[in-house]
């Protein structure tokens, strides 16, 4: 990973670029009432911080979702995928433990990404606030790692990882409310959005960073993360194992 420094620079700057586009276009079309309209629609008076924060979580979410499938696809393309099956290691463990360091790095990336805007606002996080934020990020990424394993299974089965990732990413991004409040959707959609861990993570992180409200009881949300982690990780495990076995039996492991 340290080989691709350019990628990391892009990951850190992307939330700023996306926020720049949304704010630039938003102010251009909204005119002089743009800020007032934004406040009325979102209840937030600081669109820049709101968008950059949403963008940082969105990038972390996308990377976790894409990474396992993308890694497998890359191994397939360069012809080294089957070689993993010649070793005595569990391939499931290889793919899963590939996600874990990335999830940890994402906490660092998130911190680096939001520091400039918080510094600009003169509003840096205290250590305890950062620690809570980091824990929330890590816990919210675990269910996504489970979805990542499902994508890995689909990659082994259908080969077309980016098409699958595109569909899952789009749905998760829409239902996470990275750049808008989910309250604009009907209640049914809001309920479905609870199944997307990043939607809860966005709400908690916004509460911590924008309102400095760490004394809030995040218990129910933490339980939700744990339940979702169990569901998605076990789904990922079952799906991957099943399709890996099928691919081994049909001789499709090395077919791409």
């Amino acid at each position, binding site marked *: 990973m340290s080989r691709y420094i350019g990628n990391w620079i*892009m990951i850190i700057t992307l939330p700023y670029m996306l926020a720049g586009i949304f704010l630039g276009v938003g102010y251009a079309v909204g005119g002089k009432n*743009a800020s007032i*309209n934004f406040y009325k629609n*979102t209840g937030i008076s600081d*669109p820049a911080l709101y968008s950059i924060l949403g963008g940082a979580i969105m990038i972390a979410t996308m990377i976790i979702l894409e990474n396992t499938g993308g890694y497998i696809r890359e191994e397939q393309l360069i012809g080294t995928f089957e070689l993993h099956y010649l070793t005595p290691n569990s391939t499931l463990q290889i793919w899963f433990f590939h996600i874990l360091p990335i999830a940890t790095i994402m906490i660092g990336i998130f911190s680096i990404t939001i520091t400039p805007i918080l510094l600009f606002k003169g509003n840096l996080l205290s250590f305890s606030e950062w620690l809570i934020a980091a824990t929330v990020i890590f816990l919210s990424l675990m269910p996504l790692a489970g979805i990542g394993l499902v994508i890995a299974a689909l990659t082994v089965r259908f080969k077309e990882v980016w098409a699958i990732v*595109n569909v899952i990413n*789009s749905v998760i991004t829409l239902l996470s409310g990275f750049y808008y409040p989910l309250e604009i959707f009907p209640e049914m959609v809001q309920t479905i959005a609870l199944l997307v861990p990043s939607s809860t993570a966005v709400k908690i992180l916004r509460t911590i960073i924008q309102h400095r409200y760490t004394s809030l009881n995040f218990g129910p949300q933490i339980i939700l993360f744990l339940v979702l982690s169990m569901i998605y990780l076990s789904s990922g495990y079952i799906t991957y194992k099943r399709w890996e076995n099928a691919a081994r039996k049909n001789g499709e492991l090395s077919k791409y």
Partner: protein
Amino acid sequence: MQLEKTENSQSINGKYLKGIMSIFLELYATASRGYKIYFRYTAWFIADLITTPIWILVFLLPILMFLPKEQWNNPTTINFFFWAMVMWDIVGAGLWSFGQAIRREQQTGTLEFLFLTNANRIIMFTRSIFTRGLELTIMFAYMVIVFKLLFGVDIILRNILGVIFILTLGLLIAMGFGEIYGALVLRFKNIGPVTNILEFVILGISGIFFPISRLPDQIRLISLLSPFTYIAEMTRYMAMGIETYLDPGFELILMILMAIIFNAIGFVTILYIEKNLKKTGKLGAY
């Protein structure tokens, strides 16, 4: 003497014709290869159909937050967004087509083999332009329906032939831009992250989402240097009748000139970099 002259002239004409025929043959081979690859991966196409309405919402909702709720279905605003999404595709075609094709050949280890042939270096990597053209046509029709269903707004299309002409010209400009960019991929290998950054910069300065007249003076000067500014301006002019910043006739001439100049520069740059990489032995390094 006269006979010799006629024979020479016939030989030159023959070579010329042969040259044109070989270009058409290469174009046919590249296009058919591009379409074969495209239709091999049907999952991509299906995924695009599923995700297009979702991504439209994901990108438009944050912008709509800056407008009062009663304007969320404003026909002019929605039409601006529609054409912006089409433009985004054109910008993407410019940045990703050549660079990505070269990078993919590098990764799969087939680039050196392609460079062993005498095929035209530009045509060889144009395959995604053909598929982009097809994709753009299908997505255009699909997005008209999606915008109608999502926002209840009809897409304004005042001069359909004008729009087709401008979009085709736009794709040619994007192709020239992509060739220059592809040459950089050939030289510097993995420049994917730079592509992403550049894509957002281009979207920001080229008046893709709104007329450049709304930009501050200094930024407007930069936006006038972007080829994509004129594609966006002329598309909105043809489709919606929105006034262009410069005279529309002048912008059209600029676009035609850019299509020729960019493609010529791109071709020369790729040849120059290929020659240099062959000398230094870095053609196969990635």
